[in-house]
């Protein structure tokens, strides 16, 4: 049997891109560069793993970028206000982390419930919440930037900048989220139900599946993923503003699609998404290492790769089936 392009396509593309990177600049394969690249891809990657569930179950979440900005803003405000009481210590950071997770779950729950109970298309609901979260963080920052207390920042810093066994912590988080996501999607009832609902909601309903519940859960899961991504993002810059996380939703969706998940639902792949997220970061990285193409054309190259990737998955290969 020929290599199944649908399954291996994203991996092959990643390898081709990596070889291209080495040819352009041998520094590409340097340990520093690789670890830097993976760390950067972790944000989008973690969010995209959540998005894989939402999209597989036939939904869509456009609000993740604004949600991340909003959560980051609230997190910073909470931590700053707790410094007086608890000092700039671990407790303060843990409160911030806890608040982030609760906010993520809550925001996801709202997206899920309004979509399912209100019977409104996910596109519209999350377009609405996208605007709401974005304006809320701008309001909280009073149009400027929310900055994390310097002392807290010193404590929190390692979450982004430190390594464990030579691997940066964000990459660990990315890996763990990916493994949990993989098991959840492929080996649990919840995952199977996502596939069924995304393929045909009526069939799911007639198979005694609590469709609304499962769909809402996918949004909650997405919210948790956004919260996790925010938790490792905040120590990177120590600030949040109305410009935080802009266009992350599109990058996350792009990563999911490049990875072979079908946008209209019914078919999803976690490892594909992981590869997709890394590829998107890799493109920017390679452009940084070469003068041949301007860095400003990053979006162009990404756009072309997204379209080509989907074309390769959909085109003529379909016809080989019965």
């Amino acid at each position, binding site marked *: 049997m020929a290599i199944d392009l649908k399954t291996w396509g994203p991996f092959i593309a990643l390898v081709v891109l990596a070889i291209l990177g080495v040819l352009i600049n041998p520094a590409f394969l340097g340990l520093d560069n690789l670890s830097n690249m993976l760390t950067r891809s972790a944000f989008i990657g973690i969010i995209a793993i959540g998005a894989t569930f939402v999209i597989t179950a036939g939904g869509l979440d456009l609000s993740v970028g604004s949600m991340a900005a909003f959560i980051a803003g609230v997190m910073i405000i909470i931590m700053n206000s707790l410094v007086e009481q608890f000092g700039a210590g671990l407790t303060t950071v843990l409160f911030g982390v806890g608040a982030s997770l609760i906010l993520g779950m809550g925001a996801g729950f709202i997206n899920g419930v309004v979509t399912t109970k209100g019977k409104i298309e996910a596109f519209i609901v999350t377009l609405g919440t996208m605007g709401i979260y974005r304006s809320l963080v701008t309001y909280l920052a009073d149009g400027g930037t929310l900055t994390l207390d310097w002392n807290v920042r010193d404590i929190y810093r390692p979450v982004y900048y430190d390594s464990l066994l030579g691997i940066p912590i964000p990459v660990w988080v990315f890996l763990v989220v990916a493994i949990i996501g993989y098991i959840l999607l492929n080996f*649990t009832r919840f995952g199977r139900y996502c596939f069924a609902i995304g393929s045909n909601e*009526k069939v799911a309903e007639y198979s*005694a599946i609590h469709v609304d519940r499962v769909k809402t859960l996918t949004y909650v899961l997405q919210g948790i993923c956004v919260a996790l991504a925010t938790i490792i993002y905040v120590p990177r810059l120590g600030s949040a503003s109305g410009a935080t996380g802009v266009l992350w939703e599109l990058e996350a969706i792009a990563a999911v699609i490049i990875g072979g998940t079908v946008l209209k639902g019914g078919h999803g792949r976690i490892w594909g998404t992981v590869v997709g997220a890394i590829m998107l970061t890799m493109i920017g990285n390679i452009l940084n290492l070469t003068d041949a193409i301007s860095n400003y054309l990053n979006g162009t190259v990404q756009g072309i790769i997204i379209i080509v990737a989907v074309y390769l998955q959909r085109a003529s290969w379909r016809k080989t089936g019965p």
Partner: protein
Amino acid sequence: MDSRNTPLLEGKRISRAFGGNQVLFDVDLALHPGEVHALLGENGAGKSTLVRILSGYLPPSSGEVLVAGERRAYGSSGEAEADGIVMIHQELALAEQLSVEENIFLGRELRRGLFLDRRAMRERCREALAELETAVAPTARVKDLGTSDQQMVEIAKAVTRDVRVLIMDEPTASLTEREVQVLFALVGRLRERGVAILYISHKLREIEQIADRVTVLRDGHLIDSGPLEGRSKEELARLMVGREITEMYPPRTQVPDDAPTVLEARDIVVPGAVRRASFTLRKGEVLGFGGVVGAGRTALIESILGLRYRAAGEVRRHDAPVNLRHLRDAVQHRIAYLTEDRKGKGLVLNMGLRPNLTLLNLRAYCHPLIDRKREEQAFQQAIERFDIRLRTEALTAAELSGGNQQKLLLAKVMSIDPEIVIINEPTRGIDVGTKQEIYLFIRELTDAGRSVILISSEMGELIGLSHRVAVMCAGVLTGILEGEQINEQEIMQYASGIKGVGADEQRRA
């Protein structure tokens, strides 16, 4: 050759197979101008396939289609329409969001220069609707119309075309008695104009009223063809079925007089669909549900199962009230439901066969992760028990034949080990062999002490399998027939509201 005797449309030795399943065998059919030709046959006899071939929707596997003596190989229905061959579908094919007039002229809009000539279209649309004596407004949106009005629009759409051959696939299924008479008058006028009409139905009374010539199909074979004169209704019925009903259906399980009631529905109301319906189901019994499509049978059953909103009524299981708010609750009360819409609601077509089989009872394979080995075992057992035949290794449910899909669906709902099995149209679109297997399976269910509710539009099935038959008409459960009462005529009378509860009320309405 005498041109008057050349048929307008002719099919010669037409055969057709889907996958490995042959549904038409060397069928000949000739339509002459000014003649109404009735095509008779049971569900699954191949009528729809034959007319889809004649009207260009489907190419034949072998054989040829001739128009006025010339050979045609249509690539699409548009090419057939250009020849004046128009088909009115059994399933409505209208654009819901468009208006009546937009639908009628869809794809052949009248224009004046660059722009649409709305006034001319509205005028011609009004004329066509007036001829059908219907009150539908040309500007009404199709989605706001009832089924019978939509059917009228479909008919208007066909007759406004320059039609030479009109093919009608069960056009009266959703029409009222008065509308049927209007339609027949129209058919008469078209006949006088020299249009050739192919009329598909299994309602013999209608055929007697309008047909000049009949052709009978059974299991894909041409059984009989000739003028209606000299052929009795009884004879045609026998030719259609081809075998005594008793041969087709296994004998019923004996139900003792004191068999306990396992399910009871009291005064169920579903807004817009069911008016205060009540029935009981006993252990080991097959309770049939008869009535025309849209009479409220599916709505009644689905509202009981928690699949649909119910405004009032009580459901009792073993003489205790139960509150089934979701199909999951019904499953927990060991009630299984086999939907009539195999492809739209029954199976996830693009999913593998194993996950389809276990979808309803997936928790049995989780502890807490899905045990794929046990899933595979269950699948192998199902293949054996339900005689699911896999051509090579089918990967997804879409690749199975209709009969095998139905068996997979049956295996799926049986995975919860139900006490009550509700089957909706169990044999729609499947071959005779599989039909009989399903009938035997129903008998096995009742032998094992399970109870069955059978919703069917096939009269023979209801009569051959049911211990009792509940009949519905326009949302009212008009009666529950037993013993000698279970025959075609009686069921028809209850189904059309002539007899039974609420008959008067309906006549007034």
